[in-house]
């Protein structure tokens, strides 16, 4: 049996690292730059990168509306860092015109932990991830400022939610793709498998 086909939005960001993590857990990774490519995947990863850049390119290359529609239709999506921002309902400290995909009932604060000199690594307990703590890398990372009741908080740093799930949507403020620990990606692939959207 072959693994699910999981797209990685490849407009900008750390696509290669997500591809490796996905193949480590038996998924088939495919880069997505076009709406037609989006239609061919069972799940989608929104990588780390610059959220304002990715948002602008989503608009330019006419992916924003197809993505919003796919999320509404139940496509499982995992976003890390910039990807978390894109999945939010609203963003604090973003650009006023910054396009978001939405789907997760939350408001995120961009660059919440500070500038690059404040970026850090820390061990985190993440609900739903078995075994030792997840080693989490935060790079100019956001946090969840406000979350609706439907959003399940999986991990926190200093009270702020940094990993969340709502149905088939998963988001982390940190970068599990940078550490070689593929348990977050395994969790996402399990979500994709159980959603069985049969797309």
């Amino acid at each position, binding site marked *: 049996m072959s693994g699910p086909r999981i797209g990685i939005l490849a407009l900008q960001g750390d696509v290669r690292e997500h591809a490796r993590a996905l193949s480590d857990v038996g998924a088939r990774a495919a880069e997505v730059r076009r709406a037609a490519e989006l239609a061919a995947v069972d799940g989608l990863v929104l990588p780390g990168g610059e959220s304002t850049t990715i948002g602008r390119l989503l608009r*330019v290359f006419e992916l924003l509306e197809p993505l919003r529609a796919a999320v509404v239709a139940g496509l499982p999506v995992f976003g890390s860092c910039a990807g978390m921002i894109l999945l939010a309902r609203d963003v604090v400290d*973003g650009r006023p015109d910054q396009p978001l995909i939405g789907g997760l009932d939350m408001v995120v604060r961009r660059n919440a932990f500070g500038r*690059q000199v404040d*970026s850090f690594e820390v061990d985190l307990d993440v609900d739903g991830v078995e075994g030792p703590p997840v080693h989490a890398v935060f790079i100019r990372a956001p946090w969840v400022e406000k979350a609706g009741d439907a959003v399940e908080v999986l991990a926190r740093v200093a009270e702020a939610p940094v990993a969340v799930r709502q149905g088939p949507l998963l988001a982390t403020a940190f970068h599990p793709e940078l550490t070689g620990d593929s348990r977050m990606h395994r969790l996402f692939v399990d979500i994709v498998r159980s959603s069985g959207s049969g797309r």
Partner: protein
Amino acid sequence: MVPDWSEKRRHIMSQGQTAATAGPATDSARHAGTARVKRGMAEMLKGGVIMDVVTAEQARIAEDAGAVAVMALERVPADIRAQGGVARMSDPDMISEIIEALSIPVMAKARIGHFVEAQVLQALGVDYVDESEVLTPADPHHHIDKWSFTVPFVCGATNLGEALRRLAEGAAMIRSKGEAGTGEVSNAVVHMRTIRAEIGRLSTLPAEELYAAAKELRAPVELVTEVARLGRLPVVLFTAGGIATPADAALMMQLGADGVFVGSGIFKSGDPARRARAIVEATTMFNDPDVLVKVSRGLGEAMVGINVAELPPAARYADRGW
């Protein structure tokens, strides 16, 4: 077995390093300024364009166009060439103004070997320091010891040995040098091809020949071994120096660059906002000629170039650094 050099170094460097005073509630288990955090920041810039800016107004144009970061400097390389004189780190007021105006990362240049300029830039809160040959070198023998900083560094390289020497000093990102301020892409092409060819050659060598290869490259054998194993640099490799058009950016991406620095090419052209957008879009869709046609139309005048072959040796920035 060869130890993972970067992790070893990271461990050494983390000894006696205090956690950064980050966020509202600092946690003692947090580690800032690690090799992973520094290199990881560059990973997030991949597929993107970093634009030289000299004012907050230009910085806003760059962010509006979709730049992943800006490089703050006092004069773009084309003006440094035209005006001459000593080129130094920018005025801190200008850098602060740009940091205030933007939400994307801000980089800034320090002179080769000028570790105090780098200290100033770190204290200002810049997100990346470019130890740059475009500025007048401050030390003819030694580059900055970049391990001793929390802020990450990007450095230029013309070949693999030079790239690995910069990594040995703690650089977390490499860019080709190209020939800045010329609008002529040939040197960037040569540097990118050279680095890729040298990596390809290392990958074919039996393990016992890597020691001699390290000697030839004048680089630590641990790094040479790591590159041979990975088949690429252990950090992000951008291109820089002479990129002036969307086609130039796509050319460098097709040659294997992870992303693009554009210096004088944008703000020395006829319609900077439009050209900036076009270069961003060409960098994303570098393999799609239909997009490249579309974004290359109606850009107005490109910067007036200088043929690199006509530059006297003393005017070649790529030869600075060792």
